[in-house]
Structure formats: structure tokens, C-alpha cells
């Protein structure tokens, strides 16, 4: 019923080919030191390891759920490293790579997936808002935050910028589109970073959009650009440029990072029900980490020592993640009532007191407690 003519593939910004060759782009002159490139490699390897440990922890019953970033490391690490310290990021629920860049300790990130918290870290300390599960909601939060940046006079040279992450599916949501419009009308300093991993659970991209997603932006009056989402250099360079534009007062940009969800949607999901494995094989050839490794090797920027060192770091991280996850303490029952309100609430205070009495009634009732 839909015509597919519109789904020809558009140009995308690519600075690093799957073979690890550097390409130039007229709009994004790019230079990178060996150290910086090695840093990006290390980030990607470590966050992938963190991610695979988390998947394993879920299998072992230590986490309730995990949403893997497998395949999206370049999009996240590139954009995450483009952020300045003072910038503010609003993630969805899969941005473990961004969280890594924002120095959220793994244990704080795992808390929500283990079910010991619905949040986990201090968003103001890390300049990373909490994960937001209700699709699209955070795009408006980011836009409002950016309107606050404007009101603080923090736009201009050395200004602050805001970034909002979401997926391809999220672009269908009313909120995301309202955010595009609020940002455009207010010329707010916000970058919309869409990781188009081509799937929203079981639904392929063509159920979400008839045309490439980056084009949505022009309809609202701001620039949209598609990048190779598996190219960490493109992600870094284009996000940096967009953030700089925002901080300097040029308003919003939509970046569509064209990538691929190499794993299941979450540990609850079974992609074999809805997608062909050939697709995955094709995307393995575009893997973000191996292409950066190829680059580092070809350029002679890193040798076996370096790679082995990163591997050892990854092993240590894995061990730490497993340990810290298991050590996460369960909350106490009465915490149910904490921080619902900032100020006393007579109705809730009464319920808390009653429940405390109720809990106390089991004490001394024998080892089994209760009936």
C-alpha cells in the first residue's frame, strides 16, 4: 500500500570507511590525534564490554532487563565525546555509551535495570539527565532545558548546548515533533541526535517514516543531516559542529546517525521472529570498532600492546561490573514513600506510618514472618 520510491538511500557523512580509511568531507574538515583516536577506541571497546557483561548479568538473573547498545558504540561515543563538560544531555534508555562519556559509574547505570532504583545517578553532577523510558518525552525536556540556557544568557561564545537522544521509532511520537517545533520557534540551543538503528522493537524503519529521518528537520525549519552512525569520527565531528552551532546561537540541528541494532531490542526480545539474520551479517562488516582498529593499525597509531592493554582494561571492567552489580543493595521497604513529595503530604505520611506499623507487626512473629 505504500510506495517505496522514497526509500532510496541518501547521502550520509562518512569520515571513516568500514575498511578504516579516512575520507574528507567539505563541510566537516577533520583532524584527530593518535591519542584521541585511541581514546575513542578504548571508549568503544570498554562500553561494549560493559554492555555484554550486562546482558550476561541479566541472563543470570542479576538484572531485570537490559537494553544493549551493541552496534551503536560509534554513534554514542562520538557524540558523547563531542560534548563539553557544561553541556547537558538527555538520553533515552540505551545510551550507555553516552553515560560512559559522562562518567556515570557502571553501578549507578545498572541500578535501574536491576530494579533497585528508577533513576540511578545525579543528573546535575554528570550533566546527563536520567534515562527516560516513555518514548519521546525527553526531547521536550531537552528543549525546555535549552530554553532555560537561553534565559540564563548562556548562549553565545563559549555558551552551553543541550543534546537529546532518541531512536528512529521515537520520531513518530507527537512529543518529538512538538520538541522539534518548540526548538525551531525558540531557536533553542539543542541538538537532536537520532540513532536510527532501523528497528523499533520489531518494526522496521519503513513503518516509522516514509523518508529518511534527517529530512524531518527541514520541515520545521532547521538543518538535518545524516551521518554514518557506525563511524565514530563522523559522529564526533558532526555533533561537535552542531553543538557549536547551538551554543553560538544558531539554533537546533537534527542528526540522524544511520546505524544498526546488532542485538535484540532488549533481553526480553527475540529478533529471530521478525528479521533475517543476513541483515545482521551485512552490518557486522560495518562494525564501528573494527573499522577504528583498522584505522589505528593502518596508520600505525596503535600496536598489539595497546590493543592488549585495552583488552585487559575491559576484563577488569567486566569483573568490576559483575561485582558492583551484585553488591547493589536492595532498597528498604519504607523507601517506597521517600521523595514522592518535597514537602510533607499528610495523606502519604499517614500511609507510611500505617505501613511501618504493619511491617513492625511481623517482627517477632517468627522466622517466617507473616502467616
Amino acid at each position: 500500500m505504500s510506495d517505496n520510491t522514497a526509500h532510496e538511500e541518501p547521502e550520509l557523512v562518512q569520515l571513516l570507511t568500514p575498511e578504516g580509511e579516512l575520507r574528507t568531507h567539505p563541510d566537516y574538515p577533520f583532524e584527530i590525534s593518535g591519542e584521541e583516536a585511541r581514546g575513542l577506541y578504548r571508549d568503544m571497546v570498554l562500553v561494549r564490554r560493559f554492555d555484554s557483561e550486562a546482558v550476561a548479568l541479566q541472563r543470570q538473573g542479576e538484572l531485570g532487563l537490559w537494553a544493549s547498545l551493541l552496534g551503536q558504540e560509534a554513534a554514542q561515543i562520538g557524540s558523547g565525546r563531542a560534548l563539553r563538560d557544561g553541556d547537558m544531555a538527555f538520553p533515552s534508555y540505551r545510551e550507555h555509551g553516552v553515560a560512559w562519556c559522562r562518567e556515570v559509574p557502571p553501578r549507578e547505570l545498572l541500578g535501574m535495570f536491576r530494579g533497585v532504583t528508577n533513576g540511578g545517578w545525579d543528573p546535575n553532577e554528570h550533566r546527563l539527565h536520567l534515562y527516560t523510558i516513555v518514548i519521546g518525552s525527553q526531547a521536550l525536556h531537552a528543549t525546555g532545558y535549552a530554553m532555560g540556557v537561553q534565559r540564563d544568557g548562556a548562549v553565545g561564545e563559549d555558551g552551553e548546548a543541550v543534546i537529546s537522544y532518541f531512536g528512529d521509532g521515537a520520531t513518530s511520537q507527537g512529543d518529538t515533533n512538538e520538541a522539534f517545533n518548540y526548538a525551531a520557534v525558540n531557536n533553542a540551543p539543542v541538538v537532536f541526535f537520532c540513532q536510527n538503528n532501523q528497528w523499533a522493537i520489531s518494526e522496521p524503519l519503513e513503518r516509522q517514516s516514509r523518508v529518511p529521518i534527517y529530512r524531518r528537520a527541514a520541515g520545521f525549519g532547521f538543518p538535518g543531516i545524516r551521518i554514518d552512525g557506525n563511524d565514530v569520527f563522523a559522529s564526533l565531528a558532526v555533533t561537535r559542529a552542531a553543538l557549536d552551532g547551538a551554543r553560538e546561537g544558531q539554533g537546533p540541528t537534527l542528526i540522524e546517525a544511520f546505524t544498526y541494532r546488532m542485538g535484540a531490542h532488549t533481553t526480553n526480545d527475540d529478533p529471530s521472529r521478525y528479521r533475517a539474520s543476513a541483515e545482521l551479517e551485512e552490518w557486522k562488516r560495518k562494525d564501528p570498532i573494527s573499522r577504528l582498529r583498522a584505522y589505528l593499525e593502518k596508520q600505525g597509531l596503535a600496536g598489539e600492546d595497546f590493543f592488549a592493554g585495552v583488552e585487559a582494561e575491559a576484563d577488569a571492567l567486566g569483573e568490576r561490573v559483575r561485582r558492583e552489580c551484585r553488591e547493589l543493595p536492595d532498597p528498604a521497604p519504607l523507601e517506597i514513600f521517600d521523595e514522592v513529595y518535597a514537602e510533607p503530604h499528610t495523606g502519604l505520611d499517614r500511609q507510611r506510618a500505617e505501613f511501618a506499623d504493619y511491617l513492625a507487626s511481623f517482627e517477632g512473629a517468627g522466622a517466617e514472618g507473616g502467616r
Partner: protein
Amino acid sequence: MTDLTIGKAINAGLRRAMENDPKVLVMGEDVGRLGGVFRVTDQLHKDFGAERVIDTPLAESGIVGTAIGLALRGYRPVCEIQFDGFFFPAANQTFTQLAKMRRRSAGTLSMPVVLRIPYGGGIGAVEHHSESPEAYFAHTAGLRVVTVANAVDAYWMIQQAITSDDPVVFLEPKRRYYEKAAVDTSASPESAEPMGAARIARPGTDATLIAYGPMVKTALQAAEADEDHSIEVIDLRSISPVDYDTVTASVRRTGRVVITHEAPVGNGVGAEIAARITEDCFYHLEAPVIRVGAFDTPYPQSRLEEHYLPDLDRVLDGVDRAFAY
């Protein structure tokens, strides 16, 4: 007779409704090839095609809004909202359009739309996947609100919801999806209990314990566990309207009432039922109607949900309180 889980019974009911009426459509996020995240629409896409089993864009307002348009065109859409916590983007279309359309049009327009919503907690999920939003629906005139507690009801009530010319919010107790029962799928629809009727799930004489959806099982367990009293358990089935004939007849016999639901107690459905029972059975009540529900807080992180949700002990505590008067 076939042994079916609640999830499979709904699936079978959907299938039968689709076979009976080509105007019945299924739509929502991931309802197609995947068969829904709980597999409730499993195989329907394969057997009825993408025109009748529609994988929608990720936008709940769009799901309900286009379902309204499809209903105006003569279709009977069954929308799946993937999880309770993701209903709210569709609140405007549901409350201001779907619920009011018949009245607005003085009966010229019908809205035979079903909103299927897996609801409730207890599955160890992350935030927004464990909500019990029935009070919002029950307070909205123009909607019917039903929920099921066993596979037999699941099989029949989904079909009744689909044939109803009113919009029906069909709440599916997700933590009970795997509960089994023998269902006679060859029986005639007339043999089924009507959607609006409550059911005495267990007769008793000393107190009436009212529950619906996921709490019916807990209520039955509590009634079993209480060796001191004979507890009558009512499975409400329909939340709007409530079958007060059945409820008040029971209360007049027992004189004591406990209501339990997973939703927060404050301004929950239990409040309405308590208020109404008290109005109608004032001189029969030996004790105030006792409500046992979740606390008036956001649904907590899953490691706390066993304390948050009313469980067997909390229900029994409520029964004790009713007998303390």
C-alpha cells in the same frame, strides 16, 4: 475443552472475532510479525495479513486517533497499547474523542473500538510497565472498562468487547497471562456470561472480598487462608459499569466488605465502590468498607514492588481490620 492460558485465550478470542467479522482489525506497536511483546496477537498477522493486523508507527495518540477514524468508516479496531504506562499519550484521543463521540453525535456515530492494555505489576519490570490506570478510565463517561481474571473470561470477554458498539477498555492482567484454564472454544457466544456481570468466584457468608483482574487470584488465596471466617470472593469483571446487584446482595448477606486492587488506594476504583456500597447498604454494614491497594506513590523500582502491591498478607490484614469492628 482446551487448556489455554489467559494470553492464548485472548489470542483465540481475537482470532474468532476476526474470522466472524471482516471489519475487525488489530493494530498497535509490534502486533504484527512479532505478535506483540506478550504474543497475544501471535500468528494473526500471518493469517489475516498486514491490512488487518497493523503495525503502527510508535505513537499512541495516533493509534487511538486513527482507530477512531477507522471506526467512523465502519471498522472495529482492536488497539493494543503495549504497556499500561504508555497509554497516556493517547489520553486526549481516548477521553475527549473516543469516549464522547456517540454522545456528541447524538447517537449517529458509534465507536466500536477496543483498547487492549496489559496492566498491573509484579513482573519485575522497569518503570512504566506495571501501572494500574483503571481509575482514569472508570471516571471517564462513555467508556466501558472491563478486566479478566481467568482464561474463560479472557476468551469470551474479548469477543464481547469487540462486538460491543461502545468503546471498551480491556485490561489484561499481565502477570497472570500464563494462568491456565479449560476453555470450551466451541461453545456458542450466548452461553458466556455477559461482560457487565460480576461473578461470585467463591461463596461465603462472613465477609465479601471484592477483587478484579490480577488480584482475584490473591483474593481467592486469602479466602482459602482465612480459616476463621467464610469469605465470599467477588470477581468484578466489569469496572464500568459495576454490577452492584451482585455486589450489594452479597454485602447484605455478609455485612463486611474488603476491596482490593493493585492501583493506589487514593481516588482508586475501590473508593467509588466503597462509597456506593456504603450508600446502598448503610444499615447492613458492620464495619466500614476496607480498601487494600497500593500506596499513593509512583510505582516503585521493582525490588520494592512486593511491598508496594497488596499481597496475601495485606489482604488478610484488611480482612482482619474488617472483623475488628
